[in-house]
């Protein structure tokens, strides 16, 4: 039952965080990212942490889910940490052995950089956890609309994303079926060395590609039959209108940004 794995990590809900307009969420995420790069000390991170905690509590998500999003990139975070710890320069040496030198400054810097990564991931996870992929696609299309002026294929891109989202569960289910059908003919996907395993994928991949192309072909005909002719002159069913909650969220983020800038100026 591969098909039941939902793409991304969207967690449905009806909290104020969920209700924020996807366009606004994208804007706020951009603001948040700027903020993580502006922060210069741990007090600044404290501020970010407070913001994240507040949003997470408001969204009704369990902290566990947020932390789980760090798991896939744990290695990268650790790598960043150690790299900076060993190679950043500093004066107050804490530990030295041959060419490895750890200084107080490098330790501080390493922790700082690792935390920046952590905050970046946590913030964007909050976006994907509380926004459905379709709303995200929709928001992206509208936010990117100005890029049309420079001939960027905004509509095409978002249509491709929508179709991909629509067909991923279907193709996962199909993968499952073909794997079983080939296993019934004695195919073995699990044993052997890397080369043998790669070779064993052929009986799975060929039918899968053929099926994907057939589906694409049929879908194109069905879309044409429903008068699809690109983005020109197209309207959308959903009207996105900014609500009070959107302005409140914006205000909160701007206030935080101002506070951090002011604090840095005063110090």
């Amino acid at each position, binding site marked *: 039952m591969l*098909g039941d794995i939902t793409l991304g990590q969207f967690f449905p809900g009806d909290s104020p965080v969920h209700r924020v307009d996807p366009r606004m969420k994208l804007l706020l995420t951009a603001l948040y990212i700027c903020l993580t790069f502006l922060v210069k000390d741990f007090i600044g991170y404290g501020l970010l942490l407070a913001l994240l905690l507040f949003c997470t509590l408001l969204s009704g998500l369990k902290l566990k889910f947020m932390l789980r999003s760090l798991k896939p990139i744990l290695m990268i975070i650790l790598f960043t940490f150690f790299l900076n710890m060993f190679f950043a320069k500093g004066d107050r040496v804490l530990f030295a052995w041959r060419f490895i030198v750890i200084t107080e400054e490098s330790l501080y810097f390493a922790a700082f950089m690792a935390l920046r990564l952590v905050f970046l991931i946590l913030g964007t996870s909050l976006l994907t956890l509380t926004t459905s*992929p*379709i709303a995200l696609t929709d928001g992206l299309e509208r936010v990117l609309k100005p890029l049309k002026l420079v001939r960027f294929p905004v509509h095409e891109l978002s249509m491709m994303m*929508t*179709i991909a*989202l*629509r067909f991923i*569960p*279907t193709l996962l*289910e199909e993968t499952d079926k073909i794997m079983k059908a080939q296993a019934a003919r004695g195919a073995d996907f699990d044993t052997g060395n890397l080369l043998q395993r790669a070779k064993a994928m052929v009986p799975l991949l060929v039918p899968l590609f053929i099926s994907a192309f*057939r*589906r694409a072909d*049929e*879908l194109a*005909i*069905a*879309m*044409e*039959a*429903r*008068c*699809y*002719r690109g983005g020109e*002159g*197209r*309207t*959308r*069913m*959903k*009207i996105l209108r900014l609500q009070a909650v959107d302005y409140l969220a914006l205000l909160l983020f701007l206030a935080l940004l101002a506070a951090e800038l002011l604090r840095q100026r005063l110090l």
Partner: protein
Amino acid sequence: MALIDLSEVFFQYEGQTEEDGAVRGVSFGVNKGEWLSIIGHNGSGKSTLIKLLNGLYLPTSGEVKVEGISSAAEDRIWELRKKVGMIFQNPDNQLVATVVEEDVAFGLENLGVPPLEIQGRVKNALEKVRMGEFAKHAPHHLSGGQKQRVAIAGILAMEPEVLLMDEPTAMLDPSGRKEVLDTVLRLHEEQGITVVHVTHFMEEALAADRVLCMDEGKIALSGSPREVFLNIGGLHALGLEVPPMAELSLRLRKKGLRIPETVMSIEEMTEALCQLKSAI
């Protein structure tokens, strides 16, 4: 005047000649409010024929006209496709969006209908196929029959003159098949929607007003379901299914039982046999 008019339509795929083309000189009309079923075995040209009706394929020669608009008129093709909506065989490969209501809205969005009107029409169309409660669901969690009903809603929302269906039940289980057929039958009866339905399930064509039998790109038999399905010799010659009760009644008649020649359904057979019994 007929809603759709075909005159001397030929269609050849690449590498085919006029003699072995997919459609070879077909002429007929589809009347407003009628249910027309097209049957035939695989490769008889029935699926090609239906794709000629909304300009997905253009005739190699001859003409297809929908309310006077020729399918070959490039500048009016969208106008024509708005009038002639189409449902396909594979329920998965015709749904575009990840949410049911968004998918139903797809055609209307393409037509440039204002958002508020789209919302009303989508809601309405979903009610008509009784899928209103699934508006926010993801299509891949629906059954095959439900997916087809969503596809039908997507067409209904565009308010077409004709609903074309290309083997819409071929990939469904019996309950899904019934679900889809009942839905279209109800729309046909209540809203008077015109239906052109390609199928290889003989029993589905029994509901039609008129049946065309395709064979080797030509119309081999045509008439009311009764005329076509009681032509047992003709059906056998074309390699098509005969309604089991028609076949049974023929066999019983041959053995001397007085079963009327018009018996086609189980209800009719039951009635005929009971009458025969009470006459003993």
